[in-house]
């Protein structure tokens, strides 16, 4: 897989596969830059600090048993594991799995739609550690 169009992504939140209700995923992988500049340095230098990850997920709201609302509402204010892949098929070097452990769910919008619009929820996860696996 080279470039790709995201049309069959795997989206699991707290071990629940919500791929069929997901419409958008953004993973922000960040290592904080800790300054290591000392006297004699020709320019500022940095070393890697803590991970400062965040993740935004858009879901179609679904109030059915065991679906979006039943899965998401109880995890607001807690930390869970998130798993994503570009394609829901088998993991491979060209289809890596991104696992964020300890992602804190800060925001959930259980009711979010205008007149005539699809009900959606926007989730914002913060923190945790990211691991990328290809096998």
């Amino acid at each position, binding site marked *: 897989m080279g470039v790709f169009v995201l049309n069959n992504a795997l989206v699991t939140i707290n*071990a629940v*596969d919500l791929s069929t209700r997901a419409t958008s995923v953004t993973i922000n992988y960040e290592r904080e830059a800790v300054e290591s500049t000392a006297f004699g340095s020709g320019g500022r230098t940095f070393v890697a600090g803590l991970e400062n990850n965040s993740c935004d997920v858009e879901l179609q709201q679904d109030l059915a*048993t065991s679906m979006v609302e*039943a899965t998401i509402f109880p995890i607001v204010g807690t*930390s869970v594991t998130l798993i994503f892949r570009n394609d829901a098929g088998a993991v491979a070097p060209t289809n890596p799995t991104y696992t964020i452990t300890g992602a804190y769910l800060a925001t959930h919008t259980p009711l979010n739609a205008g007149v005539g619009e699809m009900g959606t929820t926007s989730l914002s996860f913060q923190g945790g550690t990211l691991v990328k696996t290809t096998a």
Partner: protein
Amino acid sequence: MTTYRVTSDLVYGRALGDTVTDADLDGCNIDALIAGEHLAPISVTIKKQADKEAGQ
């Protein structure tokens, strides 16, 4: 160790009716999975030793 039965078909890598343990769910919010009706604790009945000795 607590054992749970999978009660929805949305639990990643598990099928409806599978059995999982705390260890299988490391990093997950188990209370939320129960609240969302994805898991149900399996209750275990422990017979007293005295009952066994009495042949009951």
